[in-house]
Each structure stands twice: as structure tokens, then as C-alpha cells.
């Protein structure tokens, strides 16, 4: 008699194993299968096309009823195995059957992970695993309405696309900042999000689900930040877990999954396992390719042929019609790795290869995945690609094809994109004027359109437009590249961020065709600043792109402690503030208290863990961060002025306080320092400050562009003003112009040197409307900037920054 082979689970893995087994040794086993699902073996990975309506169930069946009959296999549909008696070598089922085996195969797949938030078992909350889930989703979608998909991974996005296809209004809620973060880097994640959103699906990233709402059935989803999204259907697709309980109860070795050796044997020599329920060499799998490799090995093991499974490298695709993405291997950055990146902004293409020791170890492709299979093959073979490195990224079919057009980003701009911010000239006007008037150079374009005729920061773009319109006959001057990651200069980057409405670092890098995947320590902080300055209130600051002082909101010292400098508005303080500072110094054993060169007090030598406590006490006494660490407003120095001084002409102290209250908190390209002196004796050293006010009998001299650091620069006089209100307006306008036009890390004097005093005069002093508009933009930006970073952190934000991960001092003392 043939040996009895019993299989628990009728999914894709045992299905493929049986095909091999029947081909090699048709009569060897008497086979019985138990399947909890009431159906035959079908192609689970095609559930998404069934959901979207592109296919139906019959089209995805792998083995129909006839196949089991033909091969003499007994299939118990809708029967769940509930126990294994290893001593008796029998299994028992939920409907009371007990069957014996000689060899047993466990192939129970995996179970969807359900986040145990309140409301998770309300009717209308589904997972996405089998045909029943798909049927339930299609039924729910008949009523149209809103659906929320929790989880922006492979399954979640397929579910979202399918539900949208069925006419539902879908929102994807994803915990991480980028979609499919396990398979894609941030750049491909950006393109994917853009594509998903273009289909009318809303995507909320960085969002934690707090509760599922509803009384009898689901009515909505509430996020951690309080947002409520109405929903008639919620699909949870946050991950899967190997389904190993059956093995565990039978006493087999089970970690995350049922542990198998290279022959797919469990800790019991007569019991085997394969598919998503197993753990092999510490790894579990959630894609079919590795399971098919396991299937081949197990079939051989069962007929005593030598075979070994050595683990798999997997590749990912997303099965949403019209979206092409591919990823495989390890694509993290590291010192000993190199990368090749190719971007084509116009076509929405991003390709990245990660190399180590002349071999491909990872790849991410978006938009053009034709070469995915080839790269994957080179990766798995560990092929040496040194010879083809130059052209590798262009793919297997490369035959000296065209190089990418460096002007593509500019060519793709719409006609109404503003090129010259000073004079409000758009792209169409420039290209139109070139053609209509037969213009051939920059001077002519300036004369006719006024584009680039003021501050000049758009010169690079205007030159590129001339080149684009005139073709090869014109060779545009290339501006100095901002860093090795791009060919564009700072001005072009700034103008394109505005013109193309780019609102995140990955968006800038993709649309402006960055040559690296993640930028470098030069461009990241610059981009972070440009985005912050361009989109106040909209852009979310990227902490990882900031230096420690701006991350910790304190200045690091040589011994790793920090210094704390609270604001002392206009250099004024009070007995109460001084008392609070003294108390803080005592309470936290702060070793040094020093008066700074900026007219305020520095507490030096504060331990990092003490920072929130120190800030809390200073906050309680009414003091806020002095931003002594920031590329932003530092101090406003004043002298005593007309209040006390016998020479004082105006209230310089009062004006300094007003100016500091108005400008604090703003982020700027480099630090900004102000001073107000009460008379031309200039005791506040106003003429070596970025903005310096010197009071005179008739009003105020408004000076700009001073510094007294590595270079000593005296200010230049911009104009004379009559009232304090005017001084505030001119200060806001000048700060804003500097914020909008300067290159990152240029102080005001450097920016002034580049654009010229005349253009600044024109915009601030002569053009009243423009000055008022700049002032208004500064006031708007300040609404989002004037939040005390210390108070935020005292209230718990970024807590991880200030607490040690663990304190083992006692543990070691007890040794």
C-alpha cells in the first residue's frame, strides 16, 4: 500500500509542491488535503484584479475539482485541522474527523495582523487575505461611500486601488512617512504617492490609527491627532504573521514560524512544512517566489532525492494597473557602497542601483521597470558588473542611447510658471518675447521682458529658457552647481521649487533630477531651509537634515554638555528673570554662568538630559529660547538710548525690544543679528550687524550688511526713516527678501554683494507695493515660526532626543 501523505492547508505553496511530486512519482503517496477555505487551490496573488473587476474567481483557479479527481487526491474543503497527535500519527479536524498519516505537511500560510485598537472587531472592518474578504469588499463597495485602508504597503495599496476602481472614495492611512517603505526608498515612495493621489485616492502618511468608530458597524476612523475620517468600510492591511499555532501545539519547534531545515523538515522527522508559515534560517517569507523554491525542495525530499533550500532573495512588484515599480535586495546607504541613480522627471522615472565590491546588491525602479528582471538576475548571480558600469543603469537593451536632457526640468514647466519673482514675469512671456522679437541674448531679454533685470537670481533660468527656445545656436552660461548631487545652482533650485510647487525633499530631488538618491550634507540642510522658507505652514521640517545644535535647540560644548541662552529682549532683564536663572543654575548644578557678547546670559555645561528641566523652569519665569544655535534671528543689541542717556535721540531700547519680538523665531539662510543705537556714537555697534538702526534727531538710519566675525564688514546705509512703524516694516521686508533670495549659508552682506545694493534699494525703498507684499509674507511666515521650541520639548515633543535609552549604572554597581 502507498504511504499516506496528509497536507494541512491548500494554498499556493503545497499546490506547487504537489505538481512536482505528481510529475516525479505519481503513485508514490496516497494524498489527502484539508483546507479551511471552502474551495480549491486558487491564485491568491490575483485577488487584487478580482477586487478591481479585471478578473473573476474562475479565471484565477489553479487546480479545479477535476484535477483532484484525476490525480486521486482527496480534498476536504472547509475543514480545519485542529490538532496533531504525533505519537499516534493522526490529525483531528473541527468536524470530528481523525485521520492517520505516514508523512504530514503543514502549509497553513499566514494570518493578517489586526491592530487591537478600539472598534477593531466592528462589522465592516476587514482584513485582506482570501476570496471571502474580496467578496465582502465588493459587496460593501456597492453602496459607494468612503473606505479607509489602514496600511500603505503592497496589500493596502492594491486594496485601495481596487476599491477606488469599484467607485469608493478611498483614503489610505499609513504609519510611516513614505509608502511601501520596506520595499522602496523615499524617492520612489514619493513618485508612488503622487501616482496614487492622481487617481483620487487620498494618502495620509505618518498617521497613527487611534480608534475605529461606530456603534453597530463601522462609521469612521480616528487618528492619533484627532482627525476623523468617515468610513463605511475599513480594510486593515498592516502586515501578516506566520500561522504556526498548529505546529506549536503539537510541540514542534516554532519561533516566528515553524522552524524547518534545508530539507523543509520540522523538528519531527515525519512532519514537514512549507510556505508562509515556516521559518528557515531565521527568515520568513511573504511572497510566492521563495515558496515555489521550497515546493521544489520538499517534493524531492518526499521521494528521497537529495535537495536543499538555501533561502531566497526576493523582489517586489505592485499589481496596480498603470503603476510600475520594482525593488529587490538591500538598497540602504553605507560607506562601502556606491550607487548609480538615473532620474527622468518628465517621464516620472527613477532608477537606482546599489553596488558593493563591483556587484549589484540592491535596486529600486519606478516608472520604467523593464530591466528589473535583468538587474535581479545579476544581483542573484552576484555577477561582476565592473565592465558595464558606465551604461548599466540604461538597461540591457542599451545601445549608446541618448543621454538625458539636462534642461528637461525647465522644458517641462508650464507657460504660466513664474520665472522672475521680482518683476512677475512668467515662462510663456519670456519664450514668447524671444520668438516674437527675435531676441538672441540675455541683455535683450532683460530689456524687453524685465526678467532677471532686478535681483538677478533667476538669470540661470532665463538663460536656459533662451537656450531652449533658440536651440543649439545658444550656449547658456551654466551657474555653479550647489553640490555634487545636482547640476543646478542655488538660484535655479530656489526658483524651481516655487515654479514647480515642490514641497518635500524627495519631490525636489526627483523633479530636479538629483544624481544621488538622498543628497549629501551640503544640499540636504539647504533644501530643508529653502522648503521651509518657501512653504511656511505647509512644509514639515526634516530633523534628520539638521545639525545637532538645531536638533537639540542648544549649543553643544567641547565636553558634550550644552549651553542654554534664553532671550533677553533687547538686552533688558529683570530681577525676577535673574533670580530664575540663578535658581536654575543652582538646581541643575550648572558650572558656568557667563554674559555673552550678545547682551544676554549663557548657562554653560548643562547635561543633555537636564535640558528639558532647565527649559521648563526658564519657561515658567517667562523666558523662551534665544536661538543662539540657529540659522535664524539671534540677538538684538541695544543701548540705553533716550530713556537714560544724555545724548539719546530716540528710545533705542524700546525699539530693539519691538524688533526682537517681531523677528524672533524666523529661520534664515544664515544667522541674523540686529542692533539699535540711540545716537551716532553707536554704543550698540549697530554698524557691524546684519541690520543696524542708528537713531538720529529726525528719525532712524536703516543700515544693512554688517558683520564682525571672520570678516569685519561695516554696514551700508539703505535709507532714512521717520517712524518706528516704518523701521518694523522695512526690517520685515528686508528679512523676507533675504530669506527668499539668498543662498543657504550666506549672511546678509554676502547676499548683498551678489545681488547689488541697487536692486535691494529698488525693491525695498522705491517699490512701495513690493515692500508691503514682502512685509506681509514675512508676517505670515512668522505665524508658524514663533513657537518656542523649548516649550514644545518641555511638553514632550522629540522626547527621545533627551532621555537615555537605558540607565545601567545600578546594574553595573551590583556586579
Amino acid at each position, binding site marked *: 500500500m502507498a504511504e499516506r501523505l496528509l497536507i494541512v492547508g491548500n494554498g499556493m505553496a503545497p499546490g506547487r509542491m504537489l505538481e512536482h511530486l505528481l510529475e516525479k512519482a505519481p503513485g508514490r503517496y496516497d494524498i489527502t488535503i484539508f483546507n479551511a477555505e471552502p474551495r480549491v487551490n486558487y491564485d491568491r496573488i490575483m485577488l487584487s484584479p478580482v477586487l478591481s473587476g479585471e478578473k473573476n474567481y474562475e479565471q484565477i483557479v489553479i487546480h479545479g475539482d477535476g484535477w483532484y479527481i484525476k490525480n486521486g487526491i482527496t480534498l476536504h474543503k472547509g475543514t480545519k485541522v485542529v490538532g496533531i497527535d504525533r505519537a499516534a500519527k493522526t490529525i483531528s479536524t473541527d468536524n470530528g474527523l481523525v485521520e492517520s498519516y505516514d508523512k504530514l505537511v503543514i502549509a497553513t500560510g499566514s494570518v493578517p495582523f489586526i491592530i487591537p485598537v478600539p472598534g477593531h472587531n466592528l462589522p465592516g472592518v476587514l482584513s485582506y487575505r482570501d476570496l471571502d474578504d474580496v467578496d465582502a469588499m465588493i459587496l460593501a463597495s456597492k453602496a459607494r461611500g468612503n473606505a479607509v485602508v489602514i496600511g500603505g504597503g503592497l496589500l493596502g495599496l492594491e486594496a485601495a486601488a481596487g476599491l477606488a476602481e469599484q467607485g469608493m472614495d478611498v483614503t489610505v492611512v499609513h504609519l510611516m512617512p513614505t509608502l511601501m517603505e520596506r520595499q522602496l526608498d523615499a524617492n520612489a515612495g514619493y513618485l508612488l504617492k503622487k501616482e496614487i493621489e492622481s487617481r483620487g485616492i487620498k494618502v495620509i502618511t505618518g498617521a497613527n490609527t487611534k480608534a475605529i468608530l461606530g456603534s453597530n458597524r463601522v462609521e469612521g476612523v480616528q487618528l492619533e491627532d484627532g482627525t476623523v475620517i468617515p468610513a463605511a468600510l475599513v480594510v486593515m492591511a498592516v502586515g501578516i504573521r506566520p500561522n504556526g499555532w498548529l505546529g506549536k501545539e503539537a510541540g514542534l519547534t516554532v519561533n516566528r514560524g515553524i522552524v524547518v531545515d534545508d530539507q523543509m523538515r520540522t523538528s519531527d522527522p515525519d512532519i514537514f512544512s512549507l510556505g508562509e508559515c515556516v521559518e528557515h534560517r531565521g527568515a520568513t517569507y511573504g511572497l510566492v517566489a521563495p515558496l515555489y523554491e521550497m515546493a521544489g525542495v520538499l517534493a524531492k525530499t518526499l521521494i528521497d532525492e537529495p535537495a536543499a533550500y538555501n533561502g531566497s532573495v526576493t523582489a517586489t512588484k505592485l499589481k496596480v494597473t498603470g503603476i510600475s515599480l520594482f525593488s529587490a535586495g538591500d538598497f*540602504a546607504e*553605507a560607506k562601502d557602497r556606491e550607487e548609480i541613480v538615473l532620474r527622468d522627471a518628465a517621464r516620472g522615472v527613477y532608477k537606482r542601483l546599489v553596488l558593493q565590491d563591483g556587484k549589484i546588491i540592491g535596486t529600486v525602479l519606478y516608472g520604467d521597470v523593464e530591466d528589473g528582471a535583468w538587474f535581479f538576475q545579476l544581483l542573484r548571480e552576484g555577477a561582476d558588473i565592473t565592465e558595464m558600469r558606465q551604461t548599466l543603469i540604461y538597461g540591457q537593451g542599451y545601445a549608446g542611447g541618448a543621454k538625458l536632457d539636462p534642461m528637461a526640468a525647465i522644458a517641462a514647466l508650464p507657460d504660466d510658471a513664474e520665472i522672475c519673482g521680482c518683476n512677475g514675469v512668467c515662462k510663456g512671456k519670456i519664450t514668447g518675447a524671444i520668438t516674437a522679437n527675435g531676441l538672441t541674448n540675455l541683455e535683450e531679454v532683460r530689456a524687453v521682458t524685465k526678467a532677471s533685470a532686478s535681483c538677478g537670481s533667476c538669470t540661470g533660468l532665463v538663460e536656459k529658457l533662451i537656450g531652449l527656445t533658440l536651440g543649439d545656436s545658444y550656449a547658456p552660461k551654466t551657474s555653479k552647481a550647489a553640490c555634487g548631487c545636482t547640476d543646478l545652482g542655488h538660484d535655479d533650485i530656489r526658483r524651481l521649487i516655487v515654479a514647480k510647487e515642490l514641497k518635500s525633499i524627495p519631490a525636489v530631488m526627483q523633479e530636479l533630477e538629483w544624481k544621488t538618491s538622498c543628497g549629501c550634507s551640503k544640499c540636504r540642510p539647504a533644501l530643508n531651509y529653502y522648503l521651509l522658507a518657501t512653504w511656511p505652514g505647509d512644509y514639515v521640517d526634516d530633523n534628520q537634515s539638521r545639525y545637532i545644535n538645531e536638533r537639540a535647540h542648544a549649543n*553643544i560644548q567641547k*565636553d558634550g554638555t550644552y549651553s542654554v541662552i534664553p532671550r533677553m529682549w533687547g538686552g533688558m532683564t529683570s530681577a525676577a528673570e535673574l533670580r530664575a536663572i540663578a535658581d536654575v543654575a543652582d538646581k541643575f548644578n550648572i558650572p558656568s554662568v557667563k554674559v555673552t557678547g550678545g547682551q544676554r546670559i549663557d548657562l554653560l555645561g548643562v547635561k543633555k538630559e537636564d535640558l528639558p528641566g532647565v527649559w521648563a523652569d526658564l519657561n515658567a519665569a517667562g523666558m523662551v529660547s534665544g536661538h543662539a544655535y540657529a540659522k535664524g534671528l539671534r540677538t538684538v543689541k541695544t543701548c540705553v538710548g533716550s530713556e537714560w542717556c544724555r545724548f539719546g535721540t530716540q528710545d533705542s531700547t524700546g525699539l530693539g525690544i519691538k524688533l526682537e519680538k517681531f523677528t524672533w523665531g524666523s529661520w534664515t539662510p544664515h544667522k541674523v543679528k540686529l542692533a539699535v543705537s540711540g545716537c551716532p556714537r553707536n554704543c550698540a555697534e549697530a554698524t557691524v550687524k546684519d541690520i543696524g538702526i542708528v537713531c538720529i534727531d529726525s528719525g532712524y538710519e536703516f543700515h544693512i550688511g554688517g558683520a564682525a566675525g571672520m570678516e569685519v564688514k561695516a554696514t551700508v546705509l539703505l535709507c532714512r526713516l521717520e517712524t518706528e512703524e516704518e523701521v518694523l516694516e522695512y526690517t520685515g521686508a528686508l528679512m523676507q527678501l533675504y530669506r527668499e533670495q539668498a543662498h543657504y549659508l550666506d549672511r546678509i552682506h554676502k547676499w548683498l554683494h551678489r545681488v547689488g545694493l541697487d536692486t535691494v534699494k529698488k525693491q525695498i525703498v522705491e517699490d512701495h507695493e513690493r515692500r508691503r507684499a514682502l512685509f506681509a509674507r514675512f508676517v505670515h511666515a512668522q505665524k508658524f515660526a514663533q513657537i518656542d521650541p523649548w516649550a514644545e520639548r518641555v511638553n514632550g515633543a522629540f522626547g*527621545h532626543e533627551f532621555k537615555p*535609552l537605558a*540607565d*545601567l549604572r545600578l546594574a553595573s554597581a551590583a*556586579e
Partner: protein
Amino acid sequence: MNTTDWLEIGRLDDIPKRGARVVKTARGDIAIFRTMDDQVFALDDKCPHKGGPLSQGIVQGESVTCPLHNWVISLKTGEAQGADQGCTRTIAVRLQDGRIQLSWPAVPAVKAA
């Protein structure tokens, strides 16, 4: 002989990607780093140059840039990169199901000291 024990010090998610946290010990701070691809490393929190706290630096790939004078230190070996010379002690750490475990005692020769 000292056998190594593994002491649990926290979860992977407690450290931001490309970030670091400190573990206090009686013999000084240990910096625990998490890279972009979720590898975890532990080093004495002391730059070989002038003792800068490496935990406060910027993590790039498998190295960290010291916050004081920008030396670049390998997280794997503790070795200063490029032209700079020096080495910081590394300590064994491992990840078990998203939990970080530090080899302990981190300084085996406590008694000999």
C-alpha cells in the same frame, strides 16, 4: 572567565532611523546607533579625537560624524575614517524581535580594574 549575558535595553523603535540614544553605565556612556536600514551598533560615546559625544553626531550609512570637529567614525569597527587616526571601543549588540540587547557586562574586566 566571564560569560556574556544579553541585557535588554529597549526597542528598535525607541531610536529614530539615522539616530542614536545613550545608555548610561557606571563606566561611562554607551551610544546605541540605528542606521537607515535598521542595523544597530554600540560604541563608547567618546570620539577618539577629543572625546566628543558620538551619539550627538549625524549618522550616515554605517558611520557617524562627530558633532565637535567632524571626524567620521565607523560604526562597525569604531575606527576613524579617512586620514584621521584613532579607534573607539565597540560593544556587541543584537536585535531580537525588534528588541535591542547589549552584551553584558559591557566591560568584562570590571573586577580586574
